[in-house]
């Protein structure tokens, strides 16, 4: 597995998808920064310490990053067929389940790294603007929140990654599906019930973006884990059907 993880990292070198991911992450930070310069009766939004770090979270999670993570994961799985490298890998031989597992682990790591990058950007801006008002507790709380969002986003979009890989469609489909899926979170956040059970809003609850009861927290956590299990199930079924087709198909 270590070799496979190393190989997956190497395969992403100079990848335009990684550049796109970084660009999207920076873009969302810039958009919220620009929005924060709007004035209110009390002055600029940005004049409040912590406002920027707080506001970037729903913007990133409901508009951009789930789609980016879904596209990245699907791209990593689909590219072996698109680049025609799968047959070379199978002739090594490489176990397809291990290969997909390695790709999912790398996607998971990238999802966390994206949110940590976002945290680094927002923290830097907050440090520049409000270095005297920031406390260690506040920064650590935001760090935990961003970290959990990174994990949660991966779990929430993992069924889409698996589904697109299963249907062997383009990874751009994953981007589209995940965009609709994350945008729908805006409407799901309007009711307490849907907010708890809809994966995108559930992850914000688990990350601590909004206050929630312990029961709701566990329910949201359960939903996210269920998403992860569903993705694993789809991928395992996909692999089994692929093997059966290979050996017994006509």
């Amino acid at each position, binding site marked *: 597995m270590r*070799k*496979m993880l*190393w*190989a997956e990292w*190497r*395969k992403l*070198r*100079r*990848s*335009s998808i990684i550049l796109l991911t970084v660009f999207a992450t920076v873009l969302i930070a810039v958009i919220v920064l620009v929005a924060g310069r709007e004035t209110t009766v009390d002055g600029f939004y940005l004049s409040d310490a912590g406002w920027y770090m707080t506001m970037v979270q729903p913007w990133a999670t409901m508009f951009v990053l789930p789609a980016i993570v879904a596209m990245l994961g699907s791209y990593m799985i689909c*590219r072996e067929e698109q*680049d*025609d*490298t*799968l*047959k*070379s*890998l*199978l*002739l*090594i*031989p*490489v176990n397809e389940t291990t290969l997909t597992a390695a790709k999912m682990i790398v996607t998971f790591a990238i999802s966390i790294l994206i949110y940590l990058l976002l945290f680094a950007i927002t923290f830097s801006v907050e440090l520049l603007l409000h270095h005297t008002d920031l406390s260690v507790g506040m920064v650590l709380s935001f760090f935990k929140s961003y970290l959990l969002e990174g994990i949660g986003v991966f779990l929430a979009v993992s069924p889409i990654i698996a589904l697109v890989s299963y249907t062997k469609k383009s990874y751009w489909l994953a981007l589209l599906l995940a965009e609709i899926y994350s945008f729908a979170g805006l409407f799901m956040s309007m009711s307490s019930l849907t907010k708890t059970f809809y994966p995108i809003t559930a992850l914000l609850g688990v990350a601590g973006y909004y206050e929630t009861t312990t029961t709701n927290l566990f329910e949201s956590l359960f939903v996210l884990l269920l998403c992860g299990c569903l993705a694993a199930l789809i991928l395992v079924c996909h692999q089994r059907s692929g093997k059966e*087709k*290979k*050996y*017994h*198909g*006509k």
Partner: protein
Amino acid sequence: MKKFYLGKVMARFVFYTGLVVGDAGIISRHYSPESEEISMSDYLIETKQLTKTYGDQAAVKDVNLHVKKGRIYGLLGRNGAGKTTIMKMILGLTSITSGEVDVFGQNIKGHEKRIYPRIGAIIETPGFYPNLTGTENLEIFARLRGTAAPNAVKNALKVVGLPYKDKKLFSKYSLGMKQRLGIANAILHDPELLILDEPTNGLDPIGIAEMRDFIKHLSAERGKTILISSHILSEISLLADDIGIIDHGTLLVENTMKALEKKNRKYVLLRISDMPKAMLILEQEFHVTNFDMYDGHTLCIYDTSLDMGAVNKALVMHDVSVISSQLCNDTLEDYFKRITGGEGIA
């Protein structure tokens, strides 16, 4: 006398072509007398009644392929004849509808971990990661294979004439460079058996010649067994020790190259009025025994060093009319055209 002639002609035809035409007109394979005696264990690849169908359409039909250890086996056929499908089935990359494949004496299914490290292969166009350089691509495959030799990547690239640690990305490679990188990947782990599907595709003439020398070197100097497919007759005839001709999914002939080369011979075609007298003159005055007779008036003399002027003069002197005398050259391509029943192979 006539019976004797006909028998001799038939025997000669079977001897040279290695073909037996059965009652139903089906061409079946047999080894010519020049074939070496080999035991079953000498086959690195053996297929038995290998068949692949897509719906009602058969892509490969009852193919019995025998690749001997340490030899170059050329699988020759037109585009779409079924060469790649056979190779994919041998490698377990596609399902087998019926029949069996043995590689290194065992079925690949269930023994992939033991068999694949002993095989290097290029199937169709070689696929690599476009955002990486050639070296980076090979490093990935070497690491995943667990290739022990520290300079394996460098050596493989050197062998195929590609630079090591070059900055050029795979997406910028020419077709020839891609093909070379594919070969480098196939030999990276020093396999015993190489399965190369049209490896010279996209190479320039010098590249093709280099690749040919390289493949010959692998077989002759390093004892590798090579199964190579091509639609280019000249390519296979310059490379292969054994040859299999496939057409519309059927293996029409499998024989040694030496046996097939016998058909690529020059001969003098004589049309004469009196066959027995002509034969007597040829045997007694010119000591020629290497000839064939057809239809009672046609003679095929395979000794082209004969002074045909003297032969014609001698025949006329003995009241044998010479209707025509012609130097002919029956090429391998003519032979392929004949057995595949259509246009030749480039």
